[in-house]
């Protein structure tokens, strides 16, 4: 390891490693802030910010980044669904994404919505989509530069594919997995949401009439997968974390949360870092907990908000 880093330093010193995207980076689903800063001028790189807080992008973003608004760009405004193929095609064209582009997504809130964006990109077959490990928070903590100028790019030429249904669980899949145990269901919400003690985190607009969790679901809060600085833990640590919870990739996995964004974060790491077969259930608890005739487990004993 040490020898490797010495050789790498020597190569950097000689200018040999100056070419963008080293072989190691090309395979990884994550890019480091350091790599991103070095590769900002790579013409094949497309950087997209998907943040929740309005005004963050505008007041300063990673140089060259474009703004993607999850509430309007990535979802259908009328149906509760991800963006329609024609909307998404227009979006990626506008963002200047070509078939040979490397797309790096990042955002606030530990990349929740950036991961959600990565999931939507994957559903539509866009290749080479990565997350900036640690997101905005890490970039800022590293004291790397922000820019306030908007970017203009030539329209991209990428053609999206049919939706990949293997990446997305629907209500019926979850009910079926819960009954037949043909898939592991991972609930990534907080233990209090999982037990039914609370219906949603404070300030949440979208609620369900029942609290609790899907029968058979395993609770692994998303935060357990990240280090102090917001980056993902190492592959080995992640593997152990989920193996300890009984999730080793031998069975298909379904992740869910409240509306599907935090679960995308876990979907991303289980799929891209650990290589497991995972579907994200974007209907999540707001759909499941409101559905008539499906069982819930509520160890806290709350029914209609009372005990």
């Amino acid at each position: 390891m040490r020898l490797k880093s010495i050789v790498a330093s020597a190569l950097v010193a000689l200018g040999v490693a100056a070419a963008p995207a080293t072989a190691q980076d090309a395979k990884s689903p994550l890019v480091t802030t350091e790599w991103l800063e070095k590769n900002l001028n790579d013409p094949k790189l497309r950087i997209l910010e998907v943040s929740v807080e309005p005004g963050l992008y505008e007041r300063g973003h990673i140089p060259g980044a474009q703004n993607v608004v999850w509430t309007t760009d990535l979802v259908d405004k009328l149906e509760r669904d991800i963006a329609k193929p024609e909307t998404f095609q227009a979006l990626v064209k506008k963002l200047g994404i070509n078939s040979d582009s490397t797309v790096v997504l990042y955002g606030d809130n530990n990349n929740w919505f950036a991961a959600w964006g990565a999931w939507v990109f994957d559903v539509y077959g866009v290749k080479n989509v990565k997350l900036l490990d640690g997101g905005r928070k890490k970039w800022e903590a590293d004291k790397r530069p922000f820019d306030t100028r908007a970017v203009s790019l030539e329209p991209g030429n990428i053609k999206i594919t049919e939706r990949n249904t293997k990446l997305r669980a629907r209500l019926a899949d979850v009910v079926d997995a819960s009954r037949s145990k043909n898939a592991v269901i991972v609930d990534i919400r907080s233990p209090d949401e999982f037990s039914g003690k609370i219906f949603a985190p404070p300030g949440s607009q979208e609620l369900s009439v029942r609290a609790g969790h899907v029968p058979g679901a395993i609770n692994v809060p998303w935060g357990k997968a990240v280090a102090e600085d917001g980056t993902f833990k190492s592959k080995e640590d992640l593997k152990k974390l989920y193996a300890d919870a009984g999730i080793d990739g031998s069975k298909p996995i379904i992740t869910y949360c409240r509306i599907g964004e935090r679960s995308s974060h876990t979907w991303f790491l289980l799929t891209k870092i650990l290589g497991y077969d995972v579907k994200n259930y974007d209907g999540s608890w707001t759909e499941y907990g409101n559905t008539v005739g499906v069982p819930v487990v509520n160890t806290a004993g709350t029914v209609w908000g009372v005990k």
Partner: protein
Amino acid sequence: MTQGDGIPETRTASPGNRLKTPDHRPASSAFGWSRPTAAIAAALLAALAAVAYILHIQGHPALALSIVFGAIFGVVLQRSRFCFFCMFRDWYDKDDPRGLFGLLVALATGIAGYTLIFGAWLPDAATGRLPPDAFIGPVSVALVAAGFAFGAGMAISGSCVSAHLYRLGEGSPTAPFALLGTVAGFILGFATWNNIYLAAVADAPVLWLPQTLGYAGALIATLVVLAVIAWALSRTSRTVALSSSPASNFPVALLVTRWPAWIGGAIIGALGTVAYFRIAPLGVTAEIGSRARQVASGLGVAPPRLEGLDTLRGCISVAGDALFSRNGAFILALVVASFAAALAAGQFAPAWPRPAQIVRGFAGGILLGWGAMTGLGCTVGTLLSGIMAGALSGWVFAAAVFIGIAVKLSAGRHTGLLPRP
């Protein structure tokens, strides 16, 4: 100022009167009599700067900047007497348009600054998206009612929320009660919001002028409107000297004499621009609103869910969990800095409140709070920052506010409830 406010002449006079500078000594002794107060003022400002610096190096740059902007705003408000009510009343009672000219300068400066930022953030204004955080609200009957109530509240209590905040720094006996009343008014606003929202606000149009006119069109149209207002004001006003040429003694001009309103306006327009660029548009009621909401929730008098509002970001934010929000830091710095400015100027004059001041402060404050809550902001947020942002809601609120002041002043004086000029 409504004379019952008990503020000394140097602080209450209209710009015309105030130009007979307060009773300061000759230039050489400008600091002589006020050395201790000037020293305290300097220490206070230095303390604010130190707090901002510490916050900055601890990794809270936005909080640090909020303190800096709040301090600048506080000093400028106090030094230029930038008070929406006084500006209007000076013109209404004394045909003196200088205060309102100051407001027009602030708007023109801010609109130009906002347009520059918009062009960078949203290169195309016609996409249907609105610039983030800007005070662009729905235009409805509720907005008109809110503006009218806010104007009436200003006439009764003697000024708007921002001016009560800087007057708090001057030791005004009315301001504390007006601000208490504002909190009560906010609570009343929360209690009535859901019905008003469903009846009038939910379907009201949100009109952003650059969306229909383009950036250049909106900028030109607004500047033309401001010019027409300026022309109309000058036609209906007496001739007053625009400058007292105070440059002969700069320290006195800076620290003691009232700054010309247009200079205050230009600084506020520039401050509005940089504040929008770095933190959020200028606004003084977000923190008051979120604290009022905590009180209301504690008392159980406000609905736990405010329709449409909990997802709106702007003046009325979601009840803050943070002990020290950005707007809270801004307000705190505003009050401390205006106190420092008043001290240095010899205008810190605390007084015991009289019953009439308590009643009028509180009653006017309730109208201010209800108006600010229902109008989603006050004269600083909805009016000043809103017009700068090219929001039609800013203009509608402004018209309603000034009509509200005029009607209340006229009715109040007619019935003897408000003092005559």
